[in-house]
């Protein structure tokens, strides 16, 4: 039975979070924090989309523009956080 998850010598995928080296541990904390922030922003964006759709279906157009601007700002923040995650990930792997 083949129970290995990768090539010989490569760390097991499920063991990456167990007892990581200090630098990697700090990187993981940063990444997890950024992911949590992204999740919170997504919840806000989901609420915004729902409210804008309800308003549109009710015949009100005045809320569509602010909702789109705020949603775009949130999307930009999410992309920035993703770039941060990628940079931290690359930095940790490089060290």
């Amino acid at each position, binding site marked *: *039975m083949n129970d290995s998850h990768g090539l010989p010598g490569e760390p097991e995928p499920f063991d990456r979070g167990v007892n990581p080296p200090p630098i990697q541990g700090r990187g993981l904390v940063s*990444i997890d924090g950024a992911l949590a922030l992204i999740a919170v922003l997504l919840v806000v964006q989901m609420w915004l989309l729902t409210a*804008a759709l309800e308003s549109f279906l009710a015949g009100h157009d005045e809320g569509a523009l602010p909702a789109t601007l705020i949603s*775009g700002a949130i999307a930009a923040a*999410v992309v920035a956080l993703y770039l941060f995650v990628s940079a931290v990930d690359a930095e940790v792997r490089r060290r």
Partner: protein
Amino acid sequence: MKWLFGRRRDTPLWRDEFAISTADERYVNRRQFAKFLVLTSVGMFVGNAWILLRSWWRGEPVFLPATVGRVSELPVGGVKLFNYPGERDACILVRLAEDRFVAYSQKCTHLSCAVYYAREKGRLECPCHEGYFAIEDGSVLQGPPPRPLPKVVVERRGDDLIATAVYVRPQGTPA
């Protein structure tokens, strides 16, 4: 014959042929998860932009006279559904008396659910959030609808019932 004799005795044949671990297949790392979240966020922004474009391009409807029913086919208290002014604009026509017809948009002004005529209560009802409208003028009786139902102007010409316009009453306007 290697596939038969070359494997270990305790390994089933199907695992030799499908040597993919389910755990590996379902494993999602942080980077993949972050990409998924970013795509979701961009998708919701696109949704908001689509709503904005639709609200900008919501054109003024053109009202052309159209026959929506016949007097002879609609008994007193009867209901007929029709579309006016466009194919997607559902409306409801009710014959209240021998010579009295009323017609409204069938879309509830709250969230566009279809209203129906509750004959025994003499009102139009939206089943989604219990919004009630007066059958006489379309005004809001109770519930979350913010404004009266748009009224379709119906004229009787002989046996024909002809819709000629839709009167949209803004929020707060008395019916």
